[in-house]
């Protein structure tokens, strides 16, 4: 079943299908690089600061004329998708490392990268998000912006050109759908 909300963003289709996109690749690479060096500097318990990552990346790409940054909103959307991917990559990697695949590569900075990110949760959210996206790419987009990229309701509202109130409602719905999908299966009723 496909949502009817395909024209909610000028670049909705691009976002949904993950079309090859130089800007995405570039932003992804930059976020990954910056995230890696930032993670090394984090203190225990500090959250990885995805918000400032995304914003600081914007300052940089704004001046990048050969990559098509159409607008601040367009950039933030691309960056949110890239940030999502960076976090998922980290989570997968640390997950693998935790399970002993490639213990020799378990370096200090890799273990530091666990800080502030609940790895298992990132992967769970990612999994649930993929399914949600099949039904509402718009809700999935909001999750990406809010949860993965740490953007505010106001910023998301500007991207979608709707009110903050609308975003808040939609965000609540997305969270509910995700929560439902992420719940452990209920135990079967006990046979009597």
């Amino acid at each position, binding site marked *: 079943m496909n949502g009817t909300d395909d024209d909610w963003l000028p670049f909705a289709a691009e976002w949904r299908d993950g079309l090859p996109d130089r800007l995405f690749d570039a932003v992804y690479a930059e976020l990954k690089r910056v995230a890696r060096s930032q993670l090394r500097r984090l203190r*225990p318990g500090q959250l990885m600061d995805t918000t400032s990552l995304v914003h600081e990346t914007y300052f940089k790409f704004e001046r990048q004329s050969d990559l098509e940054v159409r607008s601040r909103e367009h950039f933030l959307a691309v960056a949110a998708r890239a940030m999502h991917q960076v976090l998922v990559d980290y989570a997968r990697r640390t997950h693998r490392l935790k399970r002993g695949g490639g213990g020799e590569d378990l370096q200090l900075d890799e273990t530091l990268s666990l800080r502030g990110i609940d790895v298992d949760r990132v992967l769970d959210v990612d999994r649930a998000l993929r399914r949600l996206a099949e039904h509402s790419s718009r809700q999935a987009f909001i999750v990406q912006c809010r949860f993965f990229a740490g953007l505010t309701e106001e910023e998301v509202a500007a991207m979608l050109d709707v009110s903050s109130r609308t975003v808040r409602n939609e965000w609540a719905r997305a969270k509910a759908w995700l*929560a439902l999908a992420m719940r452990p*299966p209920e135990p079967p009723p006990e046979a009597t």
Partner: protein
Amino acid sequence: MEDPYHRFQEVDDLLRRALDQPASERSSFLAEACRGDAELRLAVERLLEASDDNSFLDRAADESAACQRAPAASLGPYRLDSLLGRGGAARVFRAHDARLGRDVALKVVSESDVGRSQVERLQTEARSASSLNHPNVVTVYDIGSDQGAAYIAMELIEGRSLAEHVAEGPLPLDQAVDLAAQVARGLAAAHARGILHRDLKPGNIMISDDGLAKIVDFGLAKSLAPLEAETVAKTVARPVTATGAILGTVAYMSPEQAAGRPLDSRSDQFSLGTILYELSTGIRPFARPSAVETLAAIVSDEIPPPNELSPALPLRLTRLVGRCLEKDPAKRFESTEELASELAAIAAELAGSPEAGPAAPPPAARRRPLLRIVAAVAAVATAGGLLWGLRDRVSEAVSAAPAAPPVTASDPAERPAIAVLPLENLGSDPEDRYFSDGVSEDLVDRLSSWRMFPVISHFSSFAYDSRSSDLRAVGRRLGARYLVQGSVRRADGRVRIAARLVDSETGSVLWSDRFDRPYADLLALQDEIGETIVGALHPRLEEADQIRAARADPADLRAWDWSQRGWWHWNRLTQRDTELAREAFSKALELAPGFGEAHAGLALTHYVDLALGWADSEGQAMDVLEEAARRAVSLDRESAVAHHALGHALALRGRRQEMIAAFHRSIELNPMSALVLSCAGEGMALGGEAEEAIVYLERAIRLSPQDPALHIILHGVALAHFAAQRYDQSLAWAFRALELDPTFAWAHRTRAASLALLGRLDEAGTALAEATALDPGSSLAGGGRGLAAADPAVATRYLEGLRAAGSRSGVAGG
């Protein structure tokens, strides 16, 4: 399990409306809206209930958004340009002071993070530190506050911290001592004014691009100390992996600091001693698995003098380090000034002494010299617009590239290597595999011909998946810092190549691009990709152009295609593949009779037949080999592989001097091909050029550490040592070859000959018997073809050894 997204549109729409109701009215709203549809109502209610589960999603978003807002565009008179880094509660920005038109480093601490009283103390401390004016201390320009944040404007250092330098590998001793002497001067100046640092560590020492050491954060540690102590207390019990950041600070503390006693200037001396110890031995002396253990070690552990770990260390330096690291402050230097002048004297001695070697024996993982890495990075950073990835760095303390020293190290194999992972074949036809491999190999060749960086042979790199996500591990295993990965698709007369260049150490993408061209442009496209990569890694592209080996590409693309198919089969080294390779090269030559490298390929198929005993008629095979090799050379004088084939032909003919000349030429043309190096090395080993052979063979091993013919290369080294009459060495290398392939008869013979000449005749007899059992058809002269071009003196000794061995094994001499 039932689908949670069942009836999504209906349920979601109802959920939207329910959420718009005040919480108290939702239930009645739903009852009304879902009249008669219990399933729908249940679904919405479950969602409303579930939404409470996921408050963590909110937390992440809001904490992140609330406390880590994007930096205000300006703070006080400063325009914030980019984040350089963060340490503790502070963030450091590159900022611009419009009033004075200068760039500064702006350290910002937010009141909401550390509290108002902390901020005030920080400012007081910074104020006293700002009275310092010394070249080895970062100058504090200005202190202020704005928008609930305190800031300190400091001199902006174009460079990196000592910690970052050390992480890449040991510094040369003279450089290390020079830096330490500078730090000591800075410390002495501060101590003279009664200002302590209290947190001296490599991360707080900046090295500017012109080699000046500058101490950062003077006195700031004190004002932040309660914070640190609290964090230490929270984390001391955890294992090292969880407390890396804290350990970084704890490991350089003085005993009096660790014990919480009052500090004076001698505490900073102790920290400097710890840094010097680490710089000169590569060991952080008190680092233990946890912060508690580290603190305990600082207070009570005696550590070995540094010259026990680095015997070459001057005694004077060892004494100085020992004195700094006295547990009792009274036994350290009376004044830091005294420490500084003693260090300066040692630095001067080292600068005058020609054999100031590396400070520490380079551990295996750090064997690449720092300067060359810096050179490579600088090269990347200056190579133009494509390389934005390393320019205008946002978050690392490197804000400008150091001046690039020319990349002309004596042994190119020591430079950071580059490896091309097999490009992924996205074509629908699995037959296209040869095509994608061909493009990858060609890329390897093109990169090799620039002679800038060792290019890891495709034999080794092709063992790895281009899609591998753990590039760092791949890079380490291959001994290559830079990796090229990507994909190729051929369809509808077009070829699409996506490629990127990755620094496997940092994971950063230095360059990436997609190309979509008509198939006819493939050759030009490969050149372009090769050139761009080289451009990315080389500081002076125009020079690369001049030294690039001229290539004679066939006009006819289909001929190239056939020849790629040929090389692909040729590399597989089976009899069937060798035949298929021969057919493919012949087809290429039908289309383009003047295609030199296809002639060379044809020649080499006959060489494989001869070497592996598949030739129907050896005489005929040798004739074809020589003729094709000569054609190849005459058609393409610049082709390494053509000269290489000719070398083999001449070796088999026993023309030693000409063989050596041909192999020399092949290496001149492509010094980075493991294949060329290993064959030439073997030829030269037998030809009596033992030392040169060893250089080539060792380089081949480095370039292709997982070469399928590695046993043959190792055996080549054995032959070279044999030629040089180092029989114990030849024995050892023959063993290494046999470890990889115990059925390698030639290596058994070399083992036998070496043992015999070492006088161990019984063992020699056994070895020869093994060789004969494995390769009964061969005469005693074993690998007689291989010995054809050998230096007569070497061949005679080899045969003598075998005869002596044969006398003990009952194997008939021949």
